[in-house]
């Protein structure tokens, strides 16, 4: 049996844990923004009309998407003695915490303001500020996952720890803190108004940002050393076009949109066919168990497969599981005691591969950064990681609107209405399509279609050249180069600013 040589571990137990905790703090505060609480907050708590809120979310949503690569370019241009990512991670927590408090504390601060215009302007500015600092922290954070060590196993461990802890800590905000506090306020168990509840949660978020997110900048080192010269802002965009493996990953994500659209359809399965939304949380909790197994076994799996193989495997196996689940329940898809065990079993198994995917899909971005450094001498973590979040956000927006628009094709008619009190109400009607009831199609879209269409996104990996042996070759050569660079800087001291 071939035994791969053990890599040197540079990132200690503590540093790894601190890197993960930082993501936990970040996701705790992000949770409040991403959930359905945002529109509740604007409409019910702040008292802004739904139309103005929808317009703001659309406009700033577009800005939120396009500004990622801009931040990436700024980060890549940064050169300091602390590295290029850490300065941002050291700087961002304080303004991010302040803007978080300003955002959620808005209704309390403007309590005596009657003018709607003032409130709307405040909403735009505070959201813009928060989003700006959040991105300015998010891009360097994920870039750090590739820069904290030249050893791939250090990176795997760091990303897995971060994903695990952010799931754990990040969930507290939206699953426990907000619902409980809102309930307590609504039932009069605490004498706080919703304004005070949100302001308080904002302060708690800020504490998590300063207490946890700042740990990344304070205690995690950049070990993959940058070359001296500054690159220009536009260079980062130019190099993007040369990074073929990264372009293939982006293409793979774009092809994944088809599957994401199918997933939008599936989301209606619980309410329309089973008539029970709460199954959603029960079954996804079970899926979380699979995720735990995945995080625990990723290091073992990575000994056997390289990242390219894992990217393919992570799609193929869930596709098989989804197909099996579809046929297992295809006759009785509306009977909960038959369907729920099937879905639970599928979710546990798929949860394992989802966990692998969440780690490997981040790690391969680092691989492409290493590759580009090997090829051109320049590392572009900022650009590489921000392009991925850019595509992810774009895909999310596109698939939701596309999916909702296509629903009538399967005979499902749904209108979503935002009520004046900020809650959304869905009015829906199931008919039939292609000789089958709509419910049947929802079951298919819940199980087999997203799984099968996700196979599209493995096509680009056929042309992806960064296999395990190639990456080992690149890393060995990069190590030589770094040794040479370090030796040079160490011996001829003052005259280290030679041209390349």
């Amino acid at each position, binding site marked *: 049996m071939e035994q791969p040589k053990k890599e040197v571990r540079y990132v200690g137990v503590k540093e790894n844990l601190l890197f993960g905790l930082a993501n936990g703090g970040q996701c705790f505060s992000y949770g409040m923004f991403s959930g359905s609480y945002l529109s509740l907050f604007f409409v019910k708590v702040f008292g802004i009309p739904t139309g103005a809120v929808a317009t703001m979310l659309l406009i700033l949503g577009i800005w939120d998407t396009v500004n990622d690569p801009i931040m990436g370019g700024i980060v890549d241009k940064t050169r300091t*003695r602390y590295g290029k990512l850490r300065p941002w991670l050291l700087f961002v927590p304080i303004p991010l915490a302040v803007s978080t408090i300003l955002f959620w504390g808005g209704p309390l601060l403007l309590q005596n303001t009657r003018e709607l215009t003032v409130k709307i302007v405040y909403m735009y500015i505070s959201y813009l500020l928060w989003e700006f600092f959040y991105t300015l922290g998010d891009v360097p954070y994920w870039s750090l996952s590739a820069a904290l060590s030249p050893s791939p196993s250090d990176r795997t461990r760091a990303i897995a720890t971060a994903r695990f802890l952010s799931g754990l800590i990040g969930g507290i905000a939206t699953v426990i803190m907000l619902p409980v506090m809102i309930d307590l306020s609504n039932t009069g168990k605490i004498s706080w108004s919703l304004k005070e509840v949100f302001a308080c949660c904002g302060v708690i978020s800020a504490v998590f940002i300063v207490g946890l997110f700042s740990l990344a900048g304070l205690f995690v080192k950049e070990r993959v050393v940058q070359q001296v010269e500054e690159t220009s802002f536009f260079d980062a965009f130019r190099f993007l076009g040369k990074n073929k493996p990264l372009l293939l990953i982006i293409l793979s994500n774009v092809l994944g949109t088809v599957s994401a659209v199918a997933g939008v359809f599936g989301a209606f399965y619980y309410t329309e066919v089973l008539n029970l939304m709460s199954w959603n949380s029960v079954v996804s909790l079970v899926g979380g168990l699979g995720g735990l197994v995945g995080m625990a076994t990723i290091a073992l799996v990575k000994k056997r497969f390289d990242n390219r193989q894992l990217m393919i495997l992570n799609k193929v196996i869930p596709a098989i599981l989804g197909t099996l689940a579809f046929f297992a329940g295809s006759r009785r898809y509306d009977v909960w005691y038959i369907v729920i065990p099937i879905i639970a079993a599928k979710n546990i198994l798929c949860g394992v591969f989802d966990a692998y995917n969440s780690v490997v899909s981040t790690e391969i971005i680092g691989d492409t950064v290493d590759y580009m450094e090997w090829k051109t001498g320049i590392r572009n973590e900022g650009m590489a990681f921000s392009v991925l979040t850019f595509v992810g956000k774009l895909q999310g927006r596109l698939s939701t609107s596309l999916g909702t628009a296509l629903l009538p094709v399967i005979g499902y008619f749904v209108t979503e209405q935002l009520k004046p009190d900020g809650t959304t109400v869905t009015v829906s009607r199931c008919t039939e399509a292609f000789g089958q009831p709509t419910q049947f199609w929802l079951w298919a879209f819940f199980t087999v279609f997203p799984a099968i269409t996700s196979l599209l996104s493995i096509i680009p990996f056929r042309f992806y050249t960064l296999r395990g042996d190639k990456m080992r070759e690149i890393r060995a050569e990069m190590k030589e180069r770094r040794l040479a660079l370090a030796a*040079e800087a160490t011996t001829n001291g003052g005259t280290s*600013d030679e041209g390349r």
Partner: protein
Amino acid sequence: MKEDKTCPACGGKLSLFYLKQTCPHCGVNLLTYNAEARLEQDAQKAAQEVEALWNRLRRLDKAHLIEKHYQKKGKPFPWEAAEEKPAETDE
């Protein structure tokens, strides 16, 4: 961290807010100077931490399950890994 306060090459003082990559006193590149030695230090520190973690687990493991597992596989115990420290990575 003390390494952030002085230049590793000339020992000159550096302000915490001095951000440039090169030392203002001797012009050495602060990021690449002695980078390999610092990496080596980090590797040693990490190995010690891993060893300490294993030893802690070992104390919790009253039934000696970990010990038995490694004995059966004929592999060295993970808490001894730090001693025969791998100085080389290359195959």
